[in-house]
């Protein structure tokens, strides 16, 4: 029994005459444990994974450089009753997410193991292949609504192309995923072979925030707080758009196949829906006009989180300013459908009060000690 899923429909929420189905472009499946990958790794790489593990440009082995605000950045009700991390249990994902929201297709975005950022490129190539196989074996072949992504670390471009070729032959994958934070910005020439192949194959390029490129998260250096680091993801994506794609994509796709094919898609998952990229483009001169036109034609945004303006009447017409309200290009995200709202309903009121009291107490203490 879940308050979210099993709550009765309220009077003010009547069923619509037509059925709205959604394609969720950002679902995170998780490994139950790293040993899940063993069936897809040679003995040599199984041993490497077990003995050495990751080698990433970040200080800690076992956690992220900036501690998050909740374990694994997950909603508290997302932990499967069978154990394991959120996103690791297909039956629970069906029950909690795919079924109640009538998700027509869900696109998998694997974040485990940071395959994009492994310093050891051979290890990176081995685990990217293993992760790609694991998506088919454990997810999309068991649940046809879920669609797998070809994860490739772009810094070994040759290995990336080889993996794209291998996966494309299988015909099961719907996009190619690269990392926004790598050795160099995504627009640099060295990465173009990946885009050329993506275009030929009719696969969009998905870019999910994250990765350890070794550069400070901001142009001004390393911040102290997760609050800052988290917002720097918006900078990453804006910079990626600005630093841009030289390959001009074709005509806008038809609504029916908007997710599946034919385009370079910038997938701003977990990130800026209304980010600064569209506002910082200079308006003067033919060349800069062309840049914003290119972004409009080639970039797609996923809507969660959407950084809306709160209160004060109608929200301004940001999609209009982005030039695509009536185009099929703004992908539907769950927050727009009230997912967040229902999540809030189940949050325990007493716990909210405790949080508030905790914050007040911490603030008083902090003001005395940290900011004397």
């Amino acid at each position, binding site marked *: 029994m879940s308050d979210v899923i099993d709550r009765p429909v309220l009077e003010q929420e009547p069923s619509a005459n037509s059925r709205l189905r959604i394609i969720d472009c950002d679902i995170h499946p998780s490994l139950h444990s790293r040993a899940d990958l063993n069936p897809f790794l040679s003995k040599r790489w199984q041993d490497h994974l077990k003995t050495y593990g990751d080698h990433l440009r970040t200080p800690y082995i076992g956690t992220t450089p900036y*501690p*998050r*605000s909740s374990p694994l950045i997950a909603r508290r009700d997302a932990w499967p009753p069978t154990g394991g991390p959120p996103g690791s249990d297909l039956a629970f994902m069906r029950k909690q997410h795919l079924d109640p929201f009538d998700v027509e297709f869900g696109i998998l975005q694997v974040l485990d193991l940071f395959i994009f950022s492994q310093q050891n490129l051979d290890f990176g190539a081995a685990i990217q292949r293993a992760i790609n196989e694991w998506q088919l074996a454990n997810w999309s072949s068991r649940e046809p609504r879920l669609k797998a992504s070809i994860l490739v670390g772009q810094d070994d471009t040759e290995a990336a192309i080889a993996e794209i070729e291998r996966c494309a032959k299988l015909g099961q994958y719907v996009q190619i995923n690269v990392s*926004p*934070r*790598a*050795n160099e*910005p*995504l*627009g*640099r020439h060295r990465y173009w072979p990946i885009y050329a192949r993506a275009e030929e194959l009719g696969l969009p390029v998905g870019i999910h925030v994250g990765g350890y*490129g070794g*550069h*400070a*998260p*901001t*142009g*001004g*250096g*390393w*911040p*102290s*707080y*997760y*609050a*800052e680091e*988290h*917002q720097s993801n*918006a*900078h*990453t994506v804006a*910079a*990626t758009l*600005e*630093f*841009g794609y030289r390959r001009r994509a074709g005509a806008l796709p038809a609504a029916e196949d908007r997710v599946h094919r034919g385009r370079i898609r910038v997938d701003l998952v977990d990130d*800026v829906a*209304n*980010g*600064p990229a569209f*506002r*910082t*483009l*200079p*308006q003067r001169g033919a*060349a800069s006009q062309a840049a914003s036109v290119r972004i409009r034609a080639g970039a797609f945004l996923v809507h969660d989180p959407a*950084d809306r*303006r709160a209160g004060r009447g109608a929200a*301004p017409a940001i999609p209009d*300013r982005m030039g695509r309200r009536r185009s099929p290009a703004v992908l539907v995200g769950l927050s727009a459908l009230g997912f967040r709202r229902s999540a809030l309903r189940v949050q325990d009121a007493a716990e909210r009060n405790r*949080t508030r009291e*905790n*914050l*007040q107490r*911490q*603030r008083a*203490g902090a*003001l005395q000690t*940290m*900011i004397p």
Partner: protein
Amino acid sequence: MAATRIDCDIHPAVGGTRTTLLPYLDDHWKEQVVSRAIDGLDLTSYPPDMPLSGRADWRPAKGKPGSDLKMVQRGAFDQLGASHAICNVLYGAQAVYDPYMASAFCKAINDWIAAEWLARDSRLRASIAIPLQAPDLAIEEIERRAGDHRFVSVLVLAQGESLLGRRQYWPVWQAAEKHKLPIAIHAGSQYRGAPSSVGWPSYRYEYYLAEAQAFQAQVLSLIYEGVFLKFPGLKVVLMESGVSWLPAFMWRANKTWRGVRVEVPWIDREPAAIMRDHIRLTTQPFDSPPDAKGVAEIIDMIDCDKMFLFASDYPHWQFDGDDAIPPHLPASIVSRMCADNPLETFPRLSLAA
């Protein structure tokens, strides 16, 4: 007497360390710059010949844009109609690695601007160039200028060695607050790290766009580290940062704060509210939408008419013609940003020099 119109960002140019600044260096540094040929410290952010660094009609026949006082007077005052103007000198003193050299060059820049610009035109004011590489030396330089009210702010670059909210800089902000000097963060980089989290871009165009994000990171740093709690009288001016990115940035900051504020419990109100109280922006470039409706929406979304400060960014090429006020700004904003807001932001403007 013309109406008050304070141009908060113009750029006199230093010719060179061995030429312009030489008379203002002590014997040690005179010897050093000559014998070691320490010169050519123009910032990589602003190559003098790049179109952005100087509008065609504001380039002198000889020398860098902004190097000729008479030409600057004709441009900033006669042509663009300012009643006063604040000089922000962008020269590489702020980027050198040697803290003593940085300190000597900043001191020379401030002595030079006082003697050869402020003394020759009573309409001019200046920001204090400081060697932030060594906070104690930066404070010395602030104290040295504090008695001279023609210095109205403290100048730092948007991309330095570390984010400006961090504790090692607090004593500098304390000195600035004490002397009613706002912190002017100007576009430009020490090139200590990549200008963005995705690495080093190929083109200047990309670099210049990434500047806006560096400003955003500085604003978040100053807010979350608690600088404005510690120094409630401190104002920060973003210069040449662009403006129209602000609404989406504010929403995102509020959203992130609501989610993760447990980490920074001393911040007990929305970051956008703190921005409205403490952050100011100069209006060139504005990167405005092309239509009046779009501009009105941006202004409405920012929701604070105190944040805008008039600036031409002379001699940088941000616009053509004689009107430095971005198109479609409502009259109420224009009058505030030309006089009330600068006077409130730079309190020393009202003091006798």
